């Protein structure tokens, strides 16, 4: 377990944005050294939701006698109830203790689905991402954002072309204008609906 903690912390030190270190649920819950808030992690278990949600991931990830609370927003796939899944996200703590803030998941062992890590968003760079595009804000000061699976929010400098609905999960191509304390500002070069995966109906 200490070795796992070392590897996890090493991964975090090297590049906190780089990937989600995998750790089994018993190991994760058995070693406080692995449970640092803000730590990205991937783990596995059986998902037991608290309700019939379509946008919300809110329940327990169970592995034998071990369980971890799971909560967050569905991105492009909603884990089925009682399915064994691989899930990735960020460890958080609240008054009820440790939980995993959900980023995304896949059926256990389905390597066709991998975590999507947002690359460095350097000014001037062109990047291709999977993101949910949303119109937000109050009229007339509305604006559009692209939010990635790992919850990076990028403000779009201009609205997308007409016909792109708010909530669309798309493969977007962006040119980064600036990155700073207010977040990232980018030009949207293209947006193609993400094929394949079952999407949660967005709209919100």
């Amino acid at each position, binding site marked *: 377990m200490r070795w796992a903690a070392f590897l996890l912390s090493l991964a975090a030190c090297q590049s906190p944005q780089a990937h989600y270190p995998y750790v089994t649920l018993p190991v994760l819950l058995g070693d406080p050294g692995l449970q640092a808030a803000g730590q990205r992690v991937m783990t596995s278990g059986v998902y037991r939701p608290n309700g019939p949600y379509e946008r919300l991931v809110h329940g327990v990830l169970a592995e034998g006698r071990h369980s971890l609370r799971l909560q967050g927003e569905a991105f492009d796939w909603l884990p089925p*109830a009682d399915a064994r899944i691989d899930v990735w996200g960020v460890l958080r703590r609240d008054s009820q203790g440790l939980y995993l803030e959900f980023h995304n998941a896949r059926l256990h062992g389905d390597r066709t689905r991998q975590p999507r890590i947002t690359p460095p968003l350097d000014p001037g760079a062109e990047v291709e991402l999977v993101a949910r595009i949303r*119109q937000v804000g109050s009229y007339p*000061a509305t604006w559009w954002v692209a939010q990635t699976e790992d919850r990076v929010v990028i403000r779009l400098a201009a609205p997308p072309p007409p016909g792109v609905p*708010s909530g669309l999960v798309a493969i977007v191509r962006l040119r980064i204008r600036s990155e700073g304390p207010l977040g990232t500002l980018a030009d949207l070069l293209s947006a193609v609906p993400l094929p394949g995966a079952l999407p949660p109906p967005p*709209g919100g």
Partner: protein
Amino acid sequence: MRLRLTASRGRACPAGPAVITTFRIPAVIATLALLLSACGGSPSSTAIRPPAGSVLTVDPASYSNGTFSATASGSTGYVAGIDMDAFQEALRSYSVSVDGGYPAPAAAYRLAAPSPAGDRPVSPQEAEAIFAILRRGLVPHRPLTRPLTVPFSYSTGSQRSFWMCIQPFATCTASNQVQITATAVHTTQRSAIFVDNDNLSDVPLALAQTLSGAADQFWQAITANLGLPQNPYNTDGLGQIVFLFTRKVGQIDSNLAGFFFPADLFPDSDTTQYWNIHSNQTNMLYLHSAFASRVSMPSTMAHEFAHLVHFSRRFFVYQKTSFDPTYFVEGLAMAMEDIAGYGYNNNGSARYFVGLFLQQSADVSLVRWGAGPADIRSYYGAAYLVTRYLLDRFGTDTLSRVINSTLDVAPSVESISSEPYGRTFASIAIAIVNSAQGLGITDPRFRYSTIDVSQAGAMSFLNPGTQATTPMNWRFVRGQGGPAQVRVTITAGTSTPYAGVILK
């Protein structure tokens, strides 16, 4: 209490069970019972024969071979479909038919293919046990505790300059923002009424006193409901709110009465460098001074103040940097007009906007704000009907619970409602029709408890047939069956919508 339901296994039960329900018991218990039985594994059911006056919500998983059908005694069928899936950008379609259906239903009505656990009453103990689990709230992030700056405070007679966009925001930059010099005509502990020095005659002292008095009142009402507007320039949320009155608001849009500009809550050094726009570094709102004496001005101020509180709490207290979809943002502000006492039942703008929506609903997509041919105000009417419904059904703290969380709107509402977001929108559609047409449906899931939608005016319906839809676009269809019974059929096409169905 008597519960009848069928539930068939959905694509992701229990996350997305197929649920077709008619309830004879209070909604909360019905919801809980539904969850008790929704994963019973029964086969899908599509030929539903509810009794007269039945109300159904139809989930996408309720369709069998692309069709959903229901028959009941009566003569009129109402169908309100809504496609919640913004995954595809193209126009999609489905079709609705209303006709006389089958021979008269059997006197002893039963739903087709009841689930093993269905069609039985739920004990109060069962209901309470599950209720406790389902309604467990999500724990929010802790609020700001460390002051970042000292709140600004102004006294009457103060002067200062403000940056302002005077053109559509998409093209507003630091280079074309104008500077306005304004005077604080009247100030209180909570408000400072600034007036553009070019428009001082628009807001004389007596009017400024009236407006700041109104501001102090709605400040109390709205902050009591949503929380304090904490942000870097108002860290405890108790600082003055600047209301800047200027006719330059009209240069953006001649009908615009006021707006909130979020950039003002960020350091100017950052906004100029990263967004190429100036910030006033102030908790402030912009109002059209030519409209200052209108009876609607206090409600406009309350509306814009609600935006300020909403953004402050979401962005700065809960670090929800993606903020919220426009339909919810505007709907929340409309609902706060109600809370402040200027709303629908006080002949506020909400009633007028709802009236426009009832006439133009087919052209309103909630996720394409203002993009369709409908009057922009009809979008506000639709958004208001969403948030008003949430308050009426789930409690007056519902919107506060949604924004005082780290979750997006839809999952946050699901955490409160314990049902799929789309089903909530199907229920809202039923509530709209129920109230607009005076159908007398008393189930609290399908009615507004605080407003009478029919007061907003007549409602337009589409005819049965093919429905071309965009995401989150209610299609209100009415058709005649009869004379003894009515059958509604929804046939999925490129869209499989959620739907509310009323057989009357």
